[in-house]
């Protein structure tokens, strides 16, 4: 199967997502330039981390206008699995593919460190191989990861079981201390109503090899490989 890794000018985790898909998981992977209008037969699309277009205006605000985003939206509309990591998540929010917005971290500082997130839902292509309640140790690296949405929106996300990952402590408990950025409802990751589009602030591609300090992120990549191989999703770009 084939991963498409979208490259916006200013993406900087594109190589890392590519490396995880290709070298660690042994799958095909291809970079897709943001001006391209063809996803080249990919089975899954990754919007990687970084600072697309410099993020000078608002994170992800410019990237949603890149030509490739039309194709990504069409692919998602067909049920194709799309994963937005960090800046990729911010782009999904700006593009309206996921609800809500990102604010500055509540400490007003960029934060890079390992955190724990709990898998809340396993019926998405990116968590199918996880256990519900499973705690993953995965790094974050962002300045704007403080998830915000109106209370009605949060209530709807909860009701629809769209909160996929929450920040917790190592024991899987939601505490204020374990919430690194002040995100509403400790939300670290979400899916859309169709459950095929997932965005998360932590970087699973940085946690795919134990030499890097954690291999817990593999579960997310393995989930999508397993989902596609099982034929549960048939969309193809």
């Amino acid at each position, binding site marked *: 199967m084939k991963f498409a890794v979208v490259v916006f*000018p*200013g993406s*900087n*985790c594109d*190589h*890392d997502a590519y*490396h*995880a898909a290709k*070298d660690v998981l042994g799958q095909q992977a291809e970079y897709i*330039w943001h001006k391209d209008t063809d996803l080249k037969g990919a089975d899954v699309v990754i919007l990687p*981390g*970084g*600072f697309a*277009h*410099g*993020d*000078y205006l608002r994170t992800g605000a410019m990237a949603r206008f890149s030509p490739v985003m039309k194709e990504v939206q069409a692919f998602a509309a067909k049920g194709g699995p799309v994963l937005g990591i960090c800046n990729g998540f911010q782009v999904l929010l700006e593009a309206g593919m996921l609800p809500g917005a990102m604010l500055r*971290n*509540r*400490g*007003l*500082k*960029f*934060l*890079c*460190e390992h955190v724990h997130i709990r898998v809340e839902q396993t019926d998405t292509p990116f968590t199918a191989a996880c256990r519900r309640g499973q705690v993953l140790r995965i*790094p974050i*690296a962002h*300045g704007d990861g403080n998830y915000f949405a109106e209370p009605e929106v949060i209530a709807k996300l909860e009701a629809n079981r769209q909160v996929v990952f929450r920040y917790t402590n190592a024991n899987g408990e939601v505490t204020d201390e374990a919430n690194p*950025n*002040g995100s509403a409802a400790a939300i670290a990751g979400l899916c859309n109503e169709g459950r095929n589009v997932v965005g998360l602030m932590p*970087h699973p*591609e*940085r946690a*795919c*090899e134990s*030499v*890097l*300090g954690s291999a817990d992120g593999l579960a997310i990549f393995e989930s999508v490989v397993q989902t596609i191989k099982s034929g549960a999703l048939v969309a193809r770009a």
Partner: protein
Amino acid sequence: MIDPKVLERHGLKPDEYDRIVAFMGREPNLTELGIFSVMWSEHCSYKSSRVHLKTLPTGGPQVLQGPGENAGAVDIGEGLAAVFKIESHNHPSFIEPYQGAATGVGGIIRDIFTMGARPIALLNSLRFGSLEDPATRRLLEGVVAGIAGYGNSIGIPTVGGEIAFEPSYAGNPLVNVFCLGIEKASDIIKGVASGAGNAVYYVGAKTGRDGIHGATMASAEFDDKSAEKRPAVQVGDPFMEKLLLEACLEVMKTDTLIGIQDMGAAGLTCSTTEMGSRGGAGVEIDVAKVPQRESGMTPYEIMLSESQERMLLVVKRGREAEVERIFEKWDLHASHIGEVTTDGLLRVKENGKVVAEIPNRALTDEAPVYRRPMSRPEYLDEVQTLDLGTLGTRDTRIRDDNAALLALLGSPAIGSKRWVYRQYDHMVRTNTINMPGMGAGVVRIKDTDRALAMSVDGNGRYCYLDPRRGAMLAVAEAARNVACAGAKPLAATNCLNFGNPERPAIMWQFGQAVEGIGEACRALDTPITGGNVSLYNETDGKAIYPTPVIGVVGLLEHADRVVSRCFRAAGDAIVLLGEGRGELGGSEYLKVAHGLVQGQPPALDLKAERALQDLLVELAGARLMRSAHDCSDGGLAVTLAECTFDSGGIGADVSIDEVAVAGSADTGRAAALFGESASRVVVSVAPDATTDVLTRAKAAGVPARVIGRTGGHELRIAVGGQVAVAVAVSDAERAWSSAVEHYFAKRVA
């Protein structure tokens, strides 16, 4: 029109002006004078330091590129080169901490990718005044945010560094940044212009009036008017640099380039003259073709602007379209601004009319070189004298050795720098296998088994007390840190931060430090492949501590054999490599417990140091060490404590000998616990490997003995059979963790 006032504004001395007139055979016009002033500034010409720098060892079979290019390069096997350099951005960071630090990072990154290498790691070495001072906290916050803002955005991990706090840096903080990149050894590109008729291209950000005379500013002392120099600090745009980086690396994959250089200090002036000079050619450009951000800029302003994120390329004739196409892909416009010529002149035109014409040679090779007078400073005799017998009582809060240990661990110099490095993305590129705070920064090299370890170190206090020995100790510590990670030190880069070289006492410090660096680098086989000199680090006539900062790069042949500082298991043997001599001179202990900066820095036997480092590399290669941690600031007790931190609470029970020093019993135990004797490393070893380690140490001629065992949740250290330190690891770790953080606690979530 060129009168003494104009010269003074340009930082040129009357005799320097006379030289200019002699070379030119006429009076220069103002544009030409401006060009001379930046090229002959201390920052660009190294006129005070050059005679000393020439004495440094720069060669060796591992060196692919020594000083003189944009960065140095070493062979790391498998056909690969590591390209690296350190640079200072002290003056701009004091005036405008965020942008000063950010553009420092931008500049060093450009130096690395200019060589054709993809930058994969950053380090920084920072010096500030006391954190008690709110001005220091503001500076630190700004500098850290600036480094983070630039490095994080461009996607290069900051994998390590060091920070120290001393009052002497209060009015003149130091911001030294190091970058390392990787490329095929055969692909190294140089900053050279040659081949008459080849095209000179400008690419990147437009030229504005920012940063005019930045190089001259960096060559003058500060006074209370310094804040008014803000317009000379540039503003960084990491997104532009990211585009430049990717586009330039793509262009470099073609064979269209003759040479390339970034426009850093002295901007277009420096890049055109240096490239021409290296290639033995001339360069002719028309400033009207230079993309400009503001209207009405004069040739003078365009030539001297230090706007960031700009590159100068020399493209083979006939290949221009290929190059332009690649830049267009990245939404960058490459502008054809001139040609390479054969006449050896820098010729600047404006709409076809010549506005400046100077022989390149006059600007580079013929720049003044000074052998400035040196004299041993008077303060030395006084500060080097330390009589432990008359030391007096220590700070009343330090009731016992436990309290002394906790005070040291809680001092910002020794305490955890997590508050700082968590603001840096240190994991992007997924290569970081030894994180910040764990010793040397280590990055693996994908598609090979290898990894590179790197460390930047310096000790201004030691250098203040004895510049020569202090500089040697800095080289030794940087190389030792790299060896502790299991890597063989390969080469070094230096950043020499000193006061005003026109003062003989400062120049003496400089000369001594360079001698010390040379001697240590020769002994440890870590030639200097490049670096930077930052002089005039003074405010209101008061100089900083002389502060040479050394970056060392080392190679691990097997990335999976990397070693870090933390204990790994209970029941391991704790082995001390090297010998403590109870040296308290210049120590952190004397500063914290007695408020003294006094005495001789620790002695350094370079032969013993080399043997120790070779042994560390051997032990790591044979997988015999579970952890290794260099003994430096705070001595053995602090080192042992740091081994227990981040280990999951593994304690240690250790017994060490007394050392014979004059003075009270308190002082005697303090010397054993907190003395900073060099060439010592604490390693932990699995019980069944202990004999092997001791045997190998003996064969290597390195003193080694088992001083205790890991285990429990307490750190216990007995001195001469009497328990001196007994603290819960969790208590010690709390003191250490909050040392820097608590100064910012109110403002951090």
